[in-house]
């Protein structure tokens, strides 16, 4: 009974062996600064150039130089949004459109801009967790500077119609950014086909290292810098390059995009078996659309129990999962994502997110299916809220 199941791949992933091996030489052997003239520095520069080429290839960016390395998804989002806001301001545009269930890297950046005089419209995501293109079109104004909509949601995994949304933004001459942190490496991404102007990614979500990410910026968009200093990243983003980091991210992404269709077929089967198996639990529900959904994402609520106690019980049984209940993140508010779906507070407190990657197996699903229902039953047997729900339904 000592099996361990890691089912929190949306939070972060294990570094892949290929990425780890690719990174190793750049810590102690090729440690030179790419900006230096000597050979050691040149080796580092070549590694960074190669990583940029590889990553550009994985997302079908027209040129490697459209990819800018940053410190992760949060920085990429901050840069894209603050930069586009500044570009808008030059034309007197101070309105930004986003959605209610973006990651905090986006939402808190927008709140910051609101304090500095920008106006923000957050689109509804409805019960299914999907943005409606016609609602985006209706929200666009003369002074809209940017539309930023996430590719796939980090809690419920719903996938937005990005291509269609970008087309609408462009029809009205508005820039379009997408936070694709949960999607890159998981689903096929072609920035030219999608028509996005900017796209954020983060290495640690696809078995790359933490603390490194990239922002794709379409040629011709003169995004102002966020981090000022040295002339790295062609003067766009200062700071000595995280060589091992970008090398690891590139190795991980190349590996991840190799077998997307087969992997997703396998993960979708596992996901659906788990959802179906857990749905037989009385008063359970799946959060978010079941079809337009990341293959490895399961997000469910079980009425009458609270998320944190569920996670702790699972942890005691060797299953690492997460919850929308922010109890776990040190604040008491329920998940803004589940509230955006229109769930009442007491239900939003009881959500469970299980996220899978290539490294998970059917045995993991078996294990969860055998361990979880008794835990739900146990917590409900000691829940006065469950007692109320049962009594009310008898009336």
């Amino acid at each position, binding site marked *: 009974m000592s099996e361990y199941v890691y089912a929190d791949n949306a939070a972060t992933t294990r570094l892949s062996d290929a990425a780890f091996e690719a990174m190793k030489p750049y810590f102690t052997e090729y440690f030179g600064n790419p900006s230096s003239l000597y050979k050691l520095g040149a080796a580092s520069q070549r590694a960074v150039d190669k990583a940029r080429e590889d990553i550009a290839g994985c997302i079908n960016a027209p040129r490697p130089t459209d990819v800018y390395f940053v410190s992760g998804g949060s920085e990429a989002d901050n840069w894209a949004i603050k930069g586009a806001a500044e570009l808008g301001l030059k034309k007197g545009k101070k309105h930004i459109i986003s959605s209610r269930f973006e990651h905090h890297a986006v939402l808190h950046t927008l709140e910051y801009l609101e304090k500095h005089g920008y106006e923000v419209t957050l689109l509804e995501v409805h019960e299914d967790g999907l943005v409606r293109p016609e609602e985006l079109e209706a929200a666009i104004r003369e002074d809209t500077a940017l539309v930023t909509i996430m590719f796939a949601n980090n809690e419920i995994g719903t996938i937005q119609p990005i291509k269609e949304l970008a087309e609408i933004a462009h029809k009205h001459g508005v820039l379009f950014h997408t936070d694709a942190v949960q999607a890159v490496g998981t689903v096929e991404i072609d920035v030219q086909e999608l028509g996005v102007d900017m796209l954020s990614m983060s290495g640690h979500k696809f078995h790359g290292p933490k603390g490194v990410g990239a922002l794709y910026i379409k040629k011709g968009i003169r995004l102002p810098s966020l981090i000022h200093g040295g002339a790295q990243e062609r003067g766009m983003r200062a700071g000595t390059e995280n060589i091992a980091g970008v090398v690891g991210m590139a190795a991980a992404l190349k590996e991840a995009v190799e077998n997307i269709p087969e992997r997703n077929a396998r993960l979708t089967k596992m996901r659906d078996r788990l959802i179906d198996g857990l749905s037989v639990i009385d008063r359970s529900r799946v959060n978010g659309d079941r079809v337009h959904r990341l293959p490895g994402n399961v997000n469910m609520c079980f009425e*009458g*129990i*609270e998320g*944190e*106690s569920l996670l*702790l*019980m699972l942890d*005691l049984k060797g299953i690492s999962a997460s919850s929308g*209940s922010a*109890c*776990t993140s*040190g*604040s*008491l508010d*329920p998940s803004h994502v589940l509230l955006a779906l229109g769930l009442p*507070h*007491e239900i939003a*407190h009881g959500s469970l997110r299980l996220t899978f990657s290539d490294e998970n197996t059917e045995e993991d699903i078996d294990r969860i299916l055998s361990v979880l229902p008794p835990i739900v039953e146990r917590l409900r*047997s*000691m*829940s*006065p*809220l*469950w*007692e109320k729900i049962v009594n009310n339904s008898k009336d």
Partner: protein
Amino acid sequence: MAYSEKVMDHFANPRNVGEMPDADGIGEVGNSKCGDIMKMYIKVKDNIITDVSFKTFGCGAAIATSSMATELVKGRSIDDALQLTNKAVMEALDGLPPVKVHCSVLAEQAIKAALSDYYTKQGIDPEPIVGKISECEECHLH
């Protein structure tokens, strides 16, 4: 955020959990902010709390503090139980993370609510003895 071993022990193996059909007093308190609910049942004989049990909907700390609170009042006099503070519950659990302090307040209030109900059932006005049970300050801080 990490819980102490004692918290995890009381969470994983809660003491005195479940309904009590023949309770002499039942108290239910809720925290409107986090949505947690605690229900306490007591059995009283000659001013002594002879039995106590609880049901809780809430986080790990809410379950652990409920369990510990029942342990601290079981077999004790009503007067002792009235003196129970959230601090004593917390100390008995080797502390709680700062955001979880209010869970121990909820446990203290649940015991008091059960005692209030006991007095009311005895035809005695509980307020002069137990005091008012209001939302705790901790909860308003969040």
